[in-house]
């Protein structure tokens, strides 16, 4: 957020990559791409590339994390060393630990955990290429992978960010906008009820701008939800 630049991030209402303020980047979702996972998904969102794989429900390890009356969701978000410009040290760091934790919390709201006592549902998300908005991309991919794994859920959760760039509230920030913009607001909702399962804010927004950003991000999520549905319909209907 703090970065300074001479770049004109938004000019005459058109952004650097030619999008309008309320437009999403191009999104491609394919379900069922990995044979060894119970369910999987590959997602391309602008220049982001993410794989998600789901394993389970299965016996929860370590044992002390088991819940006697329900399953737990163990999400794991990792970035490949080659996913960013400067090589990232592989493995979990503070950022990925946090994202893994909030994603687990979000999915425990929709997955019917009470059907699988003592079990664990593992959701592994691997960012292969990062270009801002990877937590949203990873979460969206994980939702599709969970559905693909046949895990009972109340709904799928799409996730999408809004933000503020050069004083304009915009949907779905790209890398430059994320680095040099003024705010980033990732959001995940349950489409059928409108419940918020993930909301973070990095940067500054006035209350009015916040309302506007929430509105934009919610609309982005709904648009994304349709794409997720199409991906699953193609994957299962296409085999006919």
């Amino acid at each position, binding site marked *: 957020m703090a970065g300074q630049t001479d770049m004109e991030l938004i000019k005459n209402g058109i952004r650097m990559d030619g999008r309008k303020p309320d437009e999403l980047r191009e999104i491609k979702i394919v379900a069922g791409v990995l044979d060894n996972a*119970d*369910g999987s998904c590959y997602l391309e969102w602008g220049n982001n590339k993410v794989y998600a794989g789901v394993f*389970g*429900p*299965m*016996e929860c390890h370590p044992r002390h994390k088991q819940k*006697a009356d329900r399953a737990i969701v163990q999400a794991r978000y990792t970035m490949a060393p080659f996913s960013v410009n400067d090589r990232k040290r592989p493995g979990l760091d503070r950022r990925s630990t946090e994202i893994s934790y909030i994603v687990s919390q979000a999915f425990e709201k929709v997955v*019917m955990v009470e059907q*699988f*006592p*003592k*079990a664990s549902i593992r959701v592994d998300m691997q960012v292969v290429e990062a270009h801002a908005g990877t937590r949203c991309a990873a979460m969206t991919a994980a939702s599709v992978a969970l*559905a*693909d*794994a*046949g*895990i*009972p*859920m*109340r*709904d*799928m959760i799409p996730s999408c960010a809004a933000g503020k760039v050069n004083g304009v509230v915009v949907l779905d920030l790209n890398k430059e906008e994320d680095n040099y913009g003024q705010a980033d607001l990732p959001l995940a909702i349950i*489409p*059928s009820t409108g419940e918020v399962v993930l909301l973070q804010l990095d940067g500054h927004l006035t209350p009015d701008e916040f309302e506007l950003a929430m509105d934009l991000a919610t609309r982005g999520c709904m648009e994304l939800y349709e794409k997720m*549905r199409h991906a*699953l*319909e193609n994957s*299962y*209907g296409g*085999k*006919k």
Partner: protein
Amino acid sequence: MSEESSIKSNRKLVLPGDLMETKSKPGKGIFRKEGRIHSSVVGYSSDKSGYINVNAIAGRYSPKVGEKIIAICAETGPSIWRMDIGASFNSTLHHSESSWKVPFGDTARFLAIGDAIWAEIFMVDAAGSHQISLKKDDCRKLYSGTILKINPTNVPRVIGKQGSMISLIRENTTTRIQVGQNGYIWIDGKDEDIALAQVAIETINREATSEGLTKKIEKLLEK
């Protein structure tokens, strides 16, 4: 084939959270919210005899009492075996449910890790743990042969109407085949026969939702 296509026509693909327009009672793959019925999984909905069900396309095997399955030994204890049946948890086979007289601590002599059996599920409890038995009907240890794992939701397609599909494969490949409800399939015979049967079953597993599958398999087996 005509029967098959009539099943297809009233099937509808539903996704998690989809509202089901129905007056029927909720069956499996369903949840209720504010008095209305929604699907909880990706699957095909069926609405018959007063119940609405969603048959999940994917997912692990969920054991039901009385079902015949193939289990593979994963762990041995002093008086029990822990058996992999493709469900969320390993199943327990207690020595008293086996067909042998097992001295305490000598379980591995009868069933070592990796050995397979044809067994029946005889207990499932609310916590999701389950036990299997070797004392029913034709339950036995499986010697020689090979085991193939497929999606348990495709088992009815592999078996076919009144076992038509599986007997087609058996006759054309002269193999012995046993299909567990958990999607584990045991095939025994000559190596090349096993390979052919394996190809046929894998094709069914891959193209389980396509039409004209019987003709395709007939063709494949004739070659």
